[in-house]
């Protein structure tokens, strides 16, 4: 019997982060805009109530919304990244078995708990995250990830749950009823086309799928859907983030063969990860809006300086272009790397993925001319086909040693205080950006003495 697993998910994460440090935003309709202030990527409950849809381009937001007090915020990935890191740290204090799933969701294994104690632990986690970070989370728990996801959805939608829902598989009456109420299209990993075909077979609810014939499902669909079926039945089948569909982020990371403090080597590893990640993006037809780089030392090595750090970097527009991603990574390495520290592992996480075809072209592409985009697409297609033909890594992004020399021209500290200033105007339009409240000393909140 595997330990129960919980999905801890921050409610309206970006807008909630904004509110922690700017209490004036409490209770007002609030939206966060994509890179370059293109379109809506996050909404507070009040903004949802005004009928503002996800992905609405900025210039399509009706005037009436502003009359109702709508507030705009540019995306502040540095803040969201830090708050996400804090939530993770709080969870890790309670259990070591925490696996980040996206910037605002984590899987948590709750070993050795059952029944009421399990539910109490979920509430404890929720209260602790709220207290320590100011962010509200919903916790869904079950014997499998698919059920945990479903429970989480329930917890989020129904205030009566107090943000926590535990499912025990269809054996228990209340869990069974919840599965019966959940549409099969709302089950984790089931896309529109599959759910349409399932409905033709009269499989409409999650319960219908859980109790369907697994062999039939595998034959007509796939082993992936069979696995979902078994997971809905309370069987733990999905161990790692599913590789085949529904991915919200792409992680590429690896330990170094040998610990190294060498900047060039670390840079080369990050660039390789960035390239590999971009390739995966293109394969699954997604674009990334932000990228996170991480560095860590070997925590088991004794007598050496320990350090781990990560940084979220907003990309100028959602992209799958290797060069654009590599450029962002290259620009920010020095912000997290510490001179002389020997690192053990590096990683690149591509996040906030959007569907390549579903995106709002006009809004996103405002600052990027068509020529440039077509050239990039052609180049990437060529890159991928060369690598397919001549083997992985036949063609890679070259590491320009000049970059390595340039580091001497400005110190880390100067760079850090300059990062906004040194970005050319076209880099990122963020007219409504809040302070980086938690990561820049000169931008921390001001409190009034009275």
């Amino acid at each position, binding site marked *: 019997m595997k330990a129960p697993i919980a999905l801890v998910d921050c409610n309206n994460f970006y807008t909630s982060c904004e509110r922690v440090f700017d*209490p*004036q935003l*409490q209770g007002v309709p609030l939206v966060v805009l994509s890179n370059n202030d293109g379109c809506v990527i996050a909404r507070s409950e009040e903004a949802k109530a005004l009928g503002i849809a996800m992905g609405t381009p900025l210039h399509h937001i009706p005037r009436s919304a502003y009359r109702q007090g709508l507030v705009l915020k540019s995306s502040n990935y540095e803040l969201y990244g830090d708050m996400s890191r*804090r939530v993770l*740290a*709080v969870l890790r*204090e309670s259990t070591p078995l925490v696996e980040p799933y996206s910037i605002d969701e984590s899987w948590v294994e709750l070993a050795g708990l059952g029944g009421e104690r399990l539910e109490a632990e979920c509430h404890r986690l929720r209260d602790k995250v709220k*207290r*320590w*970070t*100011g962010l509200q989370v919903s916790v869904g728990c079950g014997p499998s990830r698919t059920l945990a996801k479903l429970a989480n959805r329930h917890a989020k939608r129904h205030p009566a749950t107090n943000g926590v829902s535990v499912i025990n598989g269809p054996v228990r009456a209340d869990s069974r009823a919840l599965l019966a109420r959940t549409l099969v299209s709302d089950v984790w990993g089931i896309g529109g086309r599959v759910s349409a075909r399932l409905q033709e077979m009269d499989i409409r609810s999650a319960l219908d799928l859980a109790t369907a014939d697994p062999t039939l499902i595998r034959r007509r669909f796939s082993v992936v859907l069979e696995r979902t079926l078994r997971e809905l039945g309370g069987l733990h089948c999905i161990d790692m983030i599913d590789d085949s569909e529904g991915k919200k982020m792409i992680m590429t990371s690896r330990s170094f063969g040998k610990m190294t403090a060498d900047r060039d080597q670390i840079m080369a590893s990050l660039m390789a990860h960035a390239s590999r990640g971009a390739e995966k993006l293109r394969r699954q037809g997604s674009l990334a809006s932000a990228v996170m780089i991480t560095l860590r030392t070997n925590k088991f090595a004794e007598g050496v*300086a*320990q*350090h781990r750090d990560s940084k979220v970097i907003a990309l100028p527009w959602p992209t799958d272009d290797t060069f654009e991603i590599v450029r962002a990574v290259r620009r920010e390495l020095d912000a997290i790397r*510490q001179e002389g*520290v020997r690192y053990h592992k590096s990683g690149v996480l591509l996040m906030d993925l959007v569907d390549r075809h579903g995106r709002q072209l006009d809004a996103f592409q405002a600052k990027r001319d068509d020529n440039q985009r077509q050239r990039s697409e052609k180049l990437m297609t060529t890159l991928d086909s060369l690598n397919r033909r001549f083997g992985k890594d036949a063609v890679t992004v070259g590491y320009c040693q000049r970059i390595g020399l340039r580091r001497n021209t400005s110190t880390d500290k100067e760079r850090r205080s300059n990062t906004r200033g040194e970005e050319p105007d076209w880099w990122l339009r963020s007219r409504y950006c809040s302070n980086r*409240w*938690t990561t820049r*000393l000169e931008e*921390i*909140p*001001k*409190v*009034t*003495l*009275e």
Partner: protein
Amino acid sequence: MLHVSRPVPASIDPLECLLPLAEISARAGIAGFPSPAQDYVSDTIDLNHTLIPHPAATYLVTATGDSMQTADGAGIQSGDLLVVDRSPEPRHGDIVIAVIDGEMVVKELRTQHGCPRLHSANPAYAPIPLATQDIRLWGVVTSLIRRFRR
């Protein structure tokens, strides 16, 4: 009399901000103050560790304004850096950050007759019962950092 026998080489490692305590304790006798902690001296002082026991719950804020300067207002001055920990349960006597009317303010939490109230150092402001609508405690100020020279 306090005299420093020689400058302590404070090789500050940005990773942990380690000050080499061993160096100080070795000289403590000469400098004239006893060292009762001689036996359990660790190698270093880590200010991050001392001031920030809960990094995930700790936030820095700057104080502005002028009304907590009296002694009972913890002597906070405009421009001071406050270390705010959100994790502890606020209790009587804590300096806290509260959100009042959408603004973050510094107050002192005092409980009288079982009723927690937010006090200002400035007598012009009346204490506000914590139960008042639209008041939230944001965190507890655990330390103050004032730099005399940068």
